[in-house]
């Protein structure tokens, strides 16, 4: 089990690291808009046959008044490679013939690195909060933020960080659609 750092453990939650809490990235407009084709491919791939996604007459008669879109679907729009960018896949394999396919593609709106010597990263958990369904035609905006950074001590007595990054997704009207958070352990 982990515990809070004790005085004799060398802390990794330095003032410089602590200062990153609340740091935000740029507000970025995702490429493209929410469209019926992406909605069809996504809902088929997640295997959700809900007619609220494709039966316009039925969707209009519901509580939501229109075709709805799974909020988490727009979160994947942030990883789209923009048309004006170079071909990231070809570039990834040029740099590393044994690339994992995603390479080191730089995404817009990324946060600055945490100033720590700890390099090993493990996924510690995810969260999603949903407030409104996106609609067809919406333009999606997203903004990264360091939501929280904590220190814990592992069984080996060494301190490590739990870093939580948050992304807020809004539409062209500034309406909050959803928030996702990802926590990672850095040790």
């Amino acid at each position, binding site marked *: 089990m982990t515990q809070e750092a004790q005085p004799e453990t060398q802390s990794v939650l330095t003032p410089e690291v602590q200062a990153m809490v609340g740091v935000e990235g740029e507000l970025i407009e995702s490429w493209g808009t929410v469209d019926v084709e992406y909605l069809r491919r996504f809902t088929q791939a997640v295997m959700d046959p809900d007619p609220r996604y494709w039966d316009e007459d039925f969707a209009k008669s519901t509580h939501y008044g229109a075709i709805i879109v799974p909020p988490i679907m727009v979160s994947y729009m942030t990883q789209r490679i923009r048309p004006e960018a170079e071909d990231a896949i070809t570039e990834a394999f040029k740099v590393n013939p044994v690339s994992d396919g995603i390479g080191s593609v730089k995404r817009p709106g990324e946060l600055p690195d945490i100033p720590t010597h700890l390099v090993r990263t493990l996924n510690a958990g995810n969260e999603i909060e949903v407030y*409104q369904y996106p609609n067809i035609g919406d333009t999606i905006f997203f903004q990264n933020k360091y939501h929280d950074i904590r220190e814990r001590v592992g069984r080996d007595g060494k301190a490590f960080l739990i870093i939580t990054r948050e992304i807020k997704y809004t539409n062209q009207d500034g309406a909050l659609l959803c928030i996702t958070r990802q926590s990672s352990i850095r040790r």
Partner: protein
Amino acid sequence: MTTKLEDLLKMDPADIQARNERPSAEELRNKTQTHYEDVNEGDELPKYIYSPTPTHLFRWSAAIENFHRIHYDLDFGLNHDKNPSILVHGSWKQSVVPQYLKDFTLPKGWPWKAQFEHRAMLVPGDTLIVWAIVTNKYEKGGMGFIEMDLGMKTQDGVESMPGSATVVLPLKDGPDIPYPFVPPTD
């Protein structure tokens, strides 16, 4: 009445798959409202059963433009990453959760929030059981809040995505849940 999770886990994959409760389009169209008063602590939600194949994984990779080779390139996955096969996406698992909560709260409830961790890796050939058990309920601001533990277990009982969620259901004689959703303030 859903099959209890502990009973499902004693069955072989074919019998688990036969107890899939994923709703059809018509069932979702005609779904009647579950109200706050209908739910009790300890209740189990319906079980969604999945049997992913390599083609399902490819379809997901294409849909969200995820080009990570571990999900479609068996040679790379086995020999570079030393994985037991191509892997089911964490992103797919975490996209199933909001759907599961949405279905439970339809037509007028709200699938507010969920949190989970990605644990065991999943591969084609696994039979996956999405489950949830109600742990707490309370009223606030004229709405009914239901808290639950949830996850995605394999046929061997391995938990691949331990988590929890809070959804909002209308009270039987209460007002509609506001849309867009606004949580009540303290």
